[in-house]
Structures are given as structure tokens and as C-alpha cells.
């Protein structure tokens, strides 16, 4: 592992300053569950680690008067998972975390770090494979071993975003508070993520000197329900082959008044299925409406040569998620 400077900071401003402006020269260290692995594998070789965990007040779970939720960047996945009120109000998030990683990792991993994690693509993670994401000139997945790669939103790189909480939070309409330099901005999480076609070197809009300080979830309206479903090859620690996060509000007669559908494991970012959402609004969540919506959500899928199975799989996963909120 390349030698690095280890800097403890006590404030967001210090963190931003210590991160500097040279991309990847300094990296923010929170739970470290992703970053340290990348460093050991020589995928990133920062000269400085900015230890963020000492910054006060970023490990809080706070509710506002209306029932909105503010999660500090350093809140661990395990704490969200254990929180009864979050599970009651925003089930999709703890359900996603239940199926993410393993207890040891969930105890260390932070919610902000989870959103900013790098892809697990096995070409990206191989020190000796110089792919697009690392400044190379091709995506090795296109003609290679692409059984786990993207069927939606891919190109020129075909990673899938690895996070389980991310689709859940996008479904909840969450925002992230980002601070850096002399500014702070609040961005809808959906707009936080970028596709490879926008910027192949990164997965989100964070600038080098920026950090996520909070994740904010708006209060739920009456009649709101949410759920997460994930399919994988094994249940003891595995990434999603396909996942679906669903949040829907229904009126007294059972008709959907609003709904958000986000797919995981199938696209380079949490994949919002807007057309499918539209198809459900104003209708009850009948079996035929569910099937129709799931079909619409996957209509634009373009599989690679080994991942066509993800189309029927993601369709079923979404159907099951929708049935959970009925």
C-alpha cells in the first residue's frame, strides 16, 4: 500500500481544506469499508487520508416536527437498521440495509460513504486492467464477462451502482447536503448520481473538496408505504443481481396518488423508472397494474451477451416490491 499522510479533522471546513483540489490525491475516510480495500488493491493511491469520524454532530439521527428525517453522514448502516421509528416510517431503507453486505461491514460503513462508494465491477477492481473508469480506452465488460453488468443506462462503461441504500433513498425522495469550500448545497439524491455517459470517471457530482454532511428524507404523507426487494446468487453477503425500491402513497380508496420506483443492480446509478410510476398513478395497485408497470420499467433494457437474464429477473423483483406496498 502506498504510504499516505493520515490527517484527523474536527470540522467539515477542515475536511474540505485538507481534501484540496487535486482529484484523488486526498481521500475522505469514514467507515473505510470500501476505500481501504481499494487502496490495498492499488486501485486508488491517495497521498493523504482525511479521517472524518472525529467531526462532531455528524452521527445523529434527527426527526423534525413534521416527521422528516435527517441522518448525519457518519451514521452507520447498522444504526439505521436497528432504529424502530425509521423502520416504521421508511421501511424501504432498513429493508435495503438488511440485505446489504454483512453485519461486520454494516457496523462500520456509514450512510454517506455507502452513497459515495465505488463500483464493484471486476475489471475496475483489477489493478492490471486499465478500463475507461481508470482513464483507459475501453470497457472490458462489453465483450467480456458481463453477467453482473448493466442492462439499463450503460455505455460507454457498464458498471452497476452497488449500493442498496441508494435506490431506497431515491425512492424516499431523499436529498444530500453537500459542503465544501465556502458553499453548502442541498441536492436531490437522484441528481447526485451521474451516468458514465455524463462522466465515465466518477459516479456522482462530488467535487474533490466536497463532503456529504447529511442525508435528508422528507416526511411521509398519510397512506405512504415503501418496500425493498433484492435478488442475488447467495443470501450470505452478495451484491444485487437486481433490486427494486418502491415508495407509494395511496388515497382512501386505494388509488395511487404518487409513487417512486427505483431499480438497483441493473444500471450505473439507482435507476428511476418514471414511466412505470406514471402508469400506476390514479389506479389501485392491482395485479394487472403491477405487471404492466414492471414491464414498462424494463422496456428500455439493452442486455449485453451474458446478462439478458436480468430482464425477467428485475421484472419479477419489481413486481414483488410493488406487491409489498399493496
Amino acid at each position, binding site marked *: 500500500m502506498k504510504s499516505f499522510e493520515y490527517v484527523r479533522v474536527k470540522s467539515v471546513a477542515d475536511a474540505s481544506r485538507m481534501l484540496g483540489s487535486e482529484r484523488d490525491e486526498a481521500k475522505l475516510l469514514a467507515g473505510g469499508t470500501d476505500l481501504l480495500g481499494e487502496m490495498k488493491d492499488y486501485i486508488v493511491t491517495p497521498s493523504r487520508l482525511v479521517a472524518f469520524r472525529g467531526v462532531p454532530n455528524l452521527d445523529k439521527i434527527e426527526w423534525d416536527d413534521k416527521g422528516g428525517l435527517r441522518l448525519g453522514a457518519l451514521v452507520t448502516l447498522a444504526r439505521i437498521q436497528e432504529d424502530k421509528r425509521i423502520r416504521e416510517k421508511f421501511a424501504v431503507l432498513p429493508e435495503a440495509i438488511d440485505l446489504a453486505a454483512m453485519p461486520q461491514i454494516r457496523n462500520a460503513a456509514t450512510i454517506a460513504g455507502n452513497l459515495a462508494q465505488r463500483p464493484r465491477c471486476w*475489471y475496475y477492481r483489477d489493478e*492490471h486492467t486499465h478500463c475507461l473508469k481508470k482513464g483507459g480506452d475501453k470497457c472490458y465488460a462489453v465483450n467480456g464477462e458481463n453477467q453482473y453488468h448493466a442492462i439499463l443506462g450503460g455505455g460507454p462503461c457498464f458498471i452497476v451502482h452497488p449500493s442498496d441504500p441508494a435506490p431506497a433513498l431515491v425512492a424516499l425522495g431523499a436529498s444530500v447536503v453537500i459542503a465544501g469550500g465556502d458553499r453548502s448545497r442541498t441536492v436531490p439524491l437522484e441528481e447526485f448520481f451521474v451516468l458514465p455517459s455524463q462522466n465515465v470517471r466518477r459516479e456522482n457530482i462530488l467535487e474533490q473538496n466536497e463532503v456529504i454532511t447529511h442525508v435528508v428524507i422528507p416526511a411521509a404523507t398519510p397512506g405512504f408505504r415503501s418496500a425493498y426487494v433484492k*435478488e442475488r*446468487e447467495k443470501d450470505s453477503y452478495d451484491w444485487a443481481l437486481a433490486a427494486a425500491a418502491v415508495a407509494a402513497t395511496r388515497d382512501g380508496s386505494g388509488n395511487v396518488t404518487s409513487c417512486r420506483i427505483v431499480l438497483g443492480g441493473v444500471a450505473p446509478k439507482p435507476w428511476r423508472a418514471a414511466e412505470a410510476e406514471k402508469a400506476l398513478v390514479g389506479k389501485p395497485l392491482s395485479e394487472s397494474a403491477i405487471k404492466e408497470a414492471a414491464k414498462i420499467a424494463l422496456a428500455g433494457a439493452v442486455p449485453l451477451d451474458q446478462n439478458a437474464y436480468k430482464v425477467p*429477473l428485475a421484472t419479477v423483483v419489481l413486481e414483488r416490491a410493488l406487491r409489498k406496498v399493496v
Partner: protein
Amino acid sequence: MAGVAPPKTKKVKSTITVNGEEKEVEIEVLDVEASWGKPEDRKYVGSRMTRLDGYDKVTGRAKYTYDINLPGMLNGAILRSPHAKARITAINIDAAKALPGVKSVLKLKDAGAIVRYAGDEVAALAAETPEIAEDALRAIKVTYEPLPFVVKEELARDPEAPRVISSERPNVEPGRATTRGEVGPAFEKAAAVIEGEYYAQARVHAALETHGHVVAYQPDGSVKVWSSTQGVHGVADEMANITGLPKDRIEVVCEHMGGGFGAKFGAGVEGRAASLLSKETGRPVKMMLDRRGEAESAGNSPTAKMKVKIAADADGKLAGVEAEGYGTGGIGSAGVPFPYIYPVPNVKVQQATVRTNLGPSNAMRAPGHPQASFLMESAVDELAYKLGVDPLEFRVKNDPFPLRQAEYKIGAERIGWARKFNKTPGRGSGPKLTGVGVAAATWGGGGGGGSLCDVKIAQDGSVVVELGTQDLGTGTRTYMRAIVADELMVPIEKVRVKIGNSRYGFSGGSGGSTTTPSVAPAVKMAAMQAKFDFLTALSKSTGEPLDKMEIKPGGVVSNGTKNHSWDEACKRLPAGGTSSRGAWVPGLAQGGIGGVQFAEVEVDMETGRVRCKRIVAVHDCGVVMNKMTLESQINGGIIQGIGFALTEERIADRHTGRVVNPNLEEYKIPGPWEMPEFEVVIYEYPEAKGVSGMAESPVIPTAAAIANAVYNASGARVRSLPIVPARVLAALGKVKGATA
């Protein structure tokens, strides 16, 4: 029998394995009728005993090679080729040597050498910390001229494909072939014929402790080696060769082992490098492989693809098998026993090894058998369904092996075959359907000669049993202690076991289910000798006649009346106590074991996900040493079998030539949630006279039983492993443009 007859000895021929070569030697053994006796006469052997070292293991007190940290120790690392095939045109180690903390750098290949797989060893070094060692590897400047390569066996078969080994050597070499009878007429007269192509994937051993050693040159010039090995004596022989020292100047230690599964017999490149680096630096060197090194270079289980045509006659008897297949073990070899357990009258099988630019295969828990079981048992299953015969009945009819005949019956009862077998697979309500399947195993499992065991009894009443074997995690210490305690009729706590050191009496490598049948007989003979030596010494000391002395629980009875407690008797021994040696004899070990497993699975018809709900495993093992660790061995085999069936595959990229999943993230070994309900039945039968090993048999039939159960549940025949959702959905016809 009252008293003890003076020991007669005889000379017998025995085979010992030294450096992987079998040698015939003459050994002197006790000339007594060796027997394990009746179960009711044994207090410990054959009972349920918790693992002697279990507490040490769960508390972390047990020290594995990986845990050895010595004063002044350096950390070693190996530079591997990133290319699947290349010529090294230049190699410069100066910059690496100049890094602070780097103590020695060693070229393993020179300019001009050819690397034949990504992971092939190029250089090694030793540094003050593992982190410096890793940085230093990257400071070694190697220039490669990349050469054409091929890593997919179906592409390597093309005559135009790049040659893997050398331009003179074709990639395809004829392998195992079997011909008997005539298949043509058998197919013509057949009542049912099945044709199918089956594929078993490449796997890696994925032992939780990687390969490696700590090598320490001692001040007196001797060498001590801590080794994660399946054979301390084999490594000692190899280290003697590497260092040029006589074997008595080498001490190889393996107290605890984090898994070997067939891949850890030799010192390996890492042992050689660690030894040279320790000699040069004068400091201990720890050289453990990382996961990538482990996956690329430390061995794998070869693939097996087989086109099978199989026929049965109108009586439901197997009439003929014609099969053509190939597999790849990288630059190593491939091949499976086929048509496996079935005595088919007409057989024509031709196999080939296809070389690819991947690391060499080596033995992996029942080499070739799990693959053969999956290929053959799948085809047999398909044939039974086509005939309209219950696949279990079909096996009972076609598999004459007596032990398995009994095991099919027991297992069918336990799994509830009659109730759970679906006559029409794939029918049922709801997306999740269940079904059952069955498959069988065969293995040798007998022991080999050469083991020399010592039993020492001290004046303080303590007993030590000592043997140069090693415990791979199977429970060797526990049964060794039991055998001695039973023979001397002392409480088991009195016996201390010393193994895992090449300074102790010879024992062979632990592989092929041979450890227990090689070790236990030698321990038994040593314990019998110890009993005689002990009573002889006591007789001399007390003047009581030897032929009137008898060991009873807790002590010695003399002349039928006079009692000595064990501790009092031991006080009468000479100052040095007694020291006795026993050697392996035939008659206490036996081979030729069977084993049958039944699987119950649940298939999600919409997602293609398979979950194994229950395994009933019925296994014979001759005379049982310890029921608890025996069951544990069977559980372990089943777990590995589930990985083979459902989740594990080593995947190499055809364009980069590199293994894409050299880690435990994407090489998916089963975890706690993949565990089914285990029901292990040990089939004990009175005719058993010897002890057999139980490592291979339980890993063999699991995958085939699961695959057959998947069909019985879903109606989808998945002919390639692992049975992941992609393959099940394809077999169910749910994936556009894909076939199973």
C-alpha cells in the same frame, strides 16, 4: 485373555510415500491379531467426542502458520505475471532493492523466460512490513513481450488457437479412455436413449488459510519451518533438497491448518522463495499467498464437459454409454472417472485434456469425482424420467454395490422420498416449488503404510502419543487420544497428543481420505506395544509375574487380587518411564467406501433462485473413530458440494486472460444462509473390520443430488454448474435468446 503374552514381531512389506514417490520398505511390527474389537469393549473410540482442540480454535488460542510472528521476522511477497502469456525481455530489481525496508529481492525468472499464465511467479522479496513488500513488488521493473494466449477451453480446442505450452505441443491431448462391449447394438435395442451435454465448472480450493510458510534459519544453521501443509514430512524432505541440509536439520511444524483440500502438499514456489530469502537475510521470512495468488496459482479443480449418450433396455437396466468430453486444468491436466459408479456393460468413453493459459490444476477433494458424479448422475436421472421409472428405483436396480444398496433405503426413508418425489416435475402452485434428488459416491478411503507412532508413559502417570502427521481440521488429535486411552484404560485427559512436527515418527501426506486409516492403525499398534512395555516394566519393578498382570479401568490388577492404581503403578516405572513404538499394519484399515445423498430444494420459478433446504447424507466409513468429527467431516463435504452446485465458479476473461474473481467476494463460497438442514446418517455394519477415511466421499454426490432435485422441483434440467438464476431462468425458457 489374562495377562500379556511376550510380543512376537514379524517383518512386513509396506509402502511409504516420500516426496510424492512411493517406496517399498520392510518394517517390523507386532505379530498379533490386530483388531478394533467389539464396540461395547471401547469406551472412547467410536463415541461422540468433542474436538480436543476445539476450545483453542474458537478462542483464537490455536496458532496457524498465518499467526506465527517471530522477532525480526520479514514479510515476503511474490511478483506475478499480469499477462496470460509473455516473454520476459528484461527484469530489473534495483529500484525495489533500494526501497527503505526491503531486505532482499530474488528473481524467480530471468530475461528470456516465458510466463504461461497470469499469476506465474516472476520474482519474490522480503521486507520489514507487508505494506513495504507490496510497494516493492511494484518497483520491480519487468518488460514483457505479450504472446498470444487462450483461456477458454472451447476456444483452445481450435487447431488455429494459440499454443498454450509450446509451439510443438498441441493444446488438445487425448486423456482417459474406456471401451468395453459394443455400444452400437445397445443403442439400437434400447427402450430409451438420452443425449445431453453437461458441464462442470472450474473451482478453486478457497481454503480460509492461504498457502504459505514461515522459514527461519536458526543460529546453528538448522532450519525451522512453520508450514500450512497437508504433509509435514513431505515438506521437510523438500526443504532438505532446497536448503541442501540433511533432513534431521530441518524441522517442519504445522500445529493447526486452515484447510488444504488437496492443494497443499509441497513447499511450493513460496516455500522455496521464503527459504532462499531467509538464508540470505539471516532473518525469519513469512511468505503467505494473497487471495489473488491463491486463485491464480495455487491450484484449481479442472472443468469437465461431456457429451453423453446413454441407453437403458426394456428391463430398466443401463445398456450403454457413449461419451466424449474434455476439460481444462489450465496448464495442468484434466479428466474424470466415467461412467462413474455404474457397471454399464457397453461403454465407449474418450476424454481429452485441453491446455489453457491458466494456473495448473491440482488435487481438489475427490479429484474428478464430483464432476463425474454430476455428469453421470444427471444423465442417469434424465434417462430414468424418460423411461418413466422413479430415478431412485432406477439407481437401486443399476447400482449393485452392497453398501449403497442399504444406503439408498435408509436415505429414501429419511428424506421422505415416497412423499416428496414429484411424479410430474414443474407442477405446483405458487412461484416456489420443491423437489427431491439423489446421487451416489464411491471412493477408496483406505490407508497406506509407513506411519510410525510413539507412546510414552511417564512416572507421573501421564501418557504422550506422538506421530508426525498433521490435522487438517478433521479431528486427528481427538481420536488418537481415544485409541490410546482405550488401550491403556486410562481417563482420556491423561493422554496428550503431539502431532504436526516432522521430528515425530513418519506419517504420509493427508490426502485422498487416507489420514485416519494410515494413522489410527499405527496408534493402535503403538498403544498395544506401550501396554506390554508398561506391564513388563511394572513386573520387573514389583516382582509380580507378568503373565498374571492385567490392565483394568483405572489401574492394574495383579494375580487377580492385588490392585495398583494407574498413578501408583506409574511411580514404579524406571526413571525414564516407558517408550514404545508401533507401526501401521494392514487389517486395521479398509478401503472401498460408498455413500449416498438426497437433496431437497426449493426453486423460485420466477427468479430462478435455488435454495437447498435439506440434505440427507448416508455414508459408510468402516469402523468409526469419533462420531462427532465424522459428522463434521460429512457436513463440510456437503457445504463444499453446495458451493459446487449453486454458487462457485472461477471465471477467467478471454480478452485479458485474467481471473476476474480472485477473491471471496465474487468467488462465492456458501455462507451461513446457504446452509440446509443437515441430516447425517453413519451406516455402520458388523462386517467392518478396518477404519476408512471420510474426506472425499461426502463432497462427491451433493451437487448431482441438488441438480436432480432442481429438475424434480421445476421441470428444468440445468446441465451446467453452478445452478445460478441466469441458468435456471434460461432452462425455464424465460431468457430471450439463451439456452440452459
